[in-house]
């Protein structure tokens, strides 16, 4: 029996149009209208009390990659970062292209996870982009979406069939938008810095072409397509136009893409190597505009742990990806300070919006809802020390950064899983 009184915080609950200073009560694992007897009193004065944050794009590496991360360590990062729910990608080993692997992930999450873990299933067998995975069985096994993330189905006919088929189950399709012919063996955004540094270029066009393809397929099939980690300004424009026409598409952006640009590559530090690559200042500004006008629905980390020995190599051969769950909130709060997002918009992009896209009954502080709550001190100054990360990996470009804003309490199903 857990009971909490979160006293006097600024309660921001976009699902209920709420932004007032008041108390929030938790009784057992639900939000309650009244305080329970013997409840723990938490003074939230000066803090934000928001629905538990959802990160709809993380790699927990289990099964098969436990040197990089496990469900236990990855969800510990999530809890520290203020996230009460994470959506994990299917590029594990074996890949999550079958109900058995989904069952394993759910069981391990049951046993070891600190926060809610929602698995996704593969679109194609072994994420090879050749044959459909058993999407119906995956749905029954409990996936919230299908995606080949890390890879992208190149065959337009196969992708069309995947959308038609997934539509039957109401499953959204999350797409990692990358045309392999255009990205080729690129390692850096094709532009001034890839030319200056002699790094093989990866044009934004490689993303744009697939985003356009996905828009057409979503329009054609009526199935919801969610474009993952959008990095290109032109892709934002294409999505904006498609949404205006009522096409069922949505999009997410990662903190590194709206915080950094390709100029950082001049350090040749592989912690600035990710897929899609860091892009130009013009792209970064277009992402800001997409966040402001709602073209981009969600912020997600694409938390992608890699061992130090894998990353501390020549830039060309290092794997793509960085960890991000612990720095995500602070980097996103910067958008509020820059007047790119209102506080409400920021909370929406972490709560109601991903819940809506994935059909989760999460992301609200309504009475009777699951007591997933994040308490945020938006003014807390801190320095990110990746050496102290809860992750098994250390591949963050934000080590040593002075950040502002932090989750000081993370509550999952009424249980405090992280507090500072």
């Amino acid at each position: 029996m857990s009971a909490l009184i979160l006293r006097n915080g600024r309660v921001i609950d976009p699902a209920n149009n709420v932004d007032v200073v008041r108390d929030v009560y938790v009784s057992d694992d639900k939000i309650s209208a009244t305080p329970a007897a013997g409840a723990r009193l938490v003074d939230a004065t000066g803090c934000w009390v928001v629905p538990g944050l959802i990160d709809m794009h993380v790699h927990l590496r289990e099964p098969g990659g436990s040197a990089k991360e496990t469900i236990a360590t990855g969800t510990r990062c999530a809890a520290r970062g203020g996230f009460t729910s994470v959506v994990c990608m299917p590029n594990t080993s074996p890949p999550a292209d079958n109900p058995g692997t989904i069952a394993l992930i759910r069981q391990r999450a049951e046993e070891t996870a600190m926060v809610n873990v929602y698995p996704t299933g593969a679109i194609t067998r072994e994420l090879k982009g050749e044959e459909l995975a058993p999407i119906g069985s995956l749905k029954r096994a409990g996936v919230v979406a299908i995606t080949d993330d890390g890879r992208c189905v190149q065959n337009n006919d196969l992708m069309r069939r995947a959308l038609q088929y997934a539509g039957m189950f109401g499953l959204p399709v999350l797409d990692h938008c990358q045309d392999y012919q255009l990205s080729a063996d690129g390692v850096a955004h094709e532009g001034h810095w890839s030319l200056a540094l002699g790094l093989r270029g990866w044009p934004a066009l490689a993303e744009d072409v697939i985003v356009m393809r996905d828009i057409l397929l979503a329009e054609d099939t009526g199935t919801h397509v969610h474009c993952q980690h959008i990095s290109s300004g032109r892709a934002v424009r294409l999505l904006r136009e498609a949404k205006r026409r009522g096409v069922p598409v949505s999009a997410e952006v990662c903190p590194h893409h709206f915080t950094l640009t390709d100029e950082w590559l001049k350090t040749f530090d592989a912690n600035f190597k990710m897929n899609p690559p860091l892009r130009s200042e013009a792209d970064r500004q277009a992402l800001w505009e997409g966040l402001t006008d709602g073209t981009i629905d969600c912020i997600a980390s694409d938390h992608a742990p890699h061992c130090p020995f894998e990353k501390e190599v020549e830039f060309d051969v290092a794997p793509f990806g960085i960890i991000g769950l612990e720095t995500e909130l602070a980097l996103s709060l910067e958008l509020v300070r820059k007047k790119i997002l209102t506080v409400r918009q920021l909370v929406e992009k972490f709560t109601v919006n991903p819940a809506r896209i994935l059909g989760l009954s999460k992301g609200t502080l309504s009475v009777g809802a699951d007591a997933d709550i994040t308490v945020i001190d938006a003014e807390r100054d801190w320095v990110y020390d990746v050496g102290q990360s809860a992750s098994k990996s250390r591949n963050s470009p934000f080590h040593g950064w002075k950040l502002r804003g932090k989750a000081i309490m993370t509550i999952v199903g009424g249980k405090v899983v992280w507090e500072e």
Partner: protein
Amino acid sequence: MTTVQWQRKDLVGIYELSAAEIELVLDTARAFKQVGQRAIKKVPTLRGKTLVNLFIEPSTRTRTSFELAAKRLSADVINIDTTASSLVKGETLKDTAKNLEALNADIIVIRHSAAGAAHFLASRLRASVINAGDGAHEHPTQALLDAFTIREKKGRIAGLNVLILGDILYSRVARSNIWLLTKLGARVTLSGPATLVPRQFESFGCRVTYDLDGALAEADVINLLRIQHERQRRSAFPSIGEYSTLFGLTKERFARTKPDALIMHPGPINRGVEIDSDLADCERSVILEQVTNGLAVRMAVLFLCAGGART
């Protein structure tokens, strides 16, 4: 005469050098060029120091040049090339570097197919790291020897029209040359097929043109680059034949250049592709002098980076 002091342990690229530092290297190289012209072509300047030529991408010419430069400075030289190195057995560059440091190497000259490899070593080792070419990033000693040759032949660099022709996209020589020449006030023009010379290069402060004849007519120096078959991931032009027709330096084109225009090439030359075979050997070609000057420039760089007290 510049008064700048050389403070660098490493030479990773031209990008980070000031014009004064570049001129210091060129001035210093003049003194070292004399050493090679004497009966006894050796000075004791780096006596007792050890230089490792770590060539993870094959190159006989550059490796030989560094080896001879080091020997003329009385340094001991160890050559590690890709076949002999344990790198092929899966050892990482970081491991290799730490091993070399354990052997107390003073200078590591690195050639590597990955951009940033010299940077990677320089930031992790106490030894001096000299970049002998990293992927398509930089080849600073080549640009310095090109500039040395131009200055020797033309007496200056500022104000000259330098045309760099050919495969710019995959060329580290082109990048180092562009940085160096623009820092010293030359006007740099790039030409070649649009797939290898994208317009985006204009953000480097040079001009991009696909009108080769116009560019040739005003060039004081023509620097020809080799087509880098090994770095091109897909075909950038239909055929070698079409390339040499459109962008090769033929006798007809050469006849319309300025009478004192120099022909340069970092080598090795694809005769009949980027340049007519006879032109490579004509009296306006300084291709072999570039090789000679390469030694002097490399001696100067080794002296400046590794000659003083270790900090």
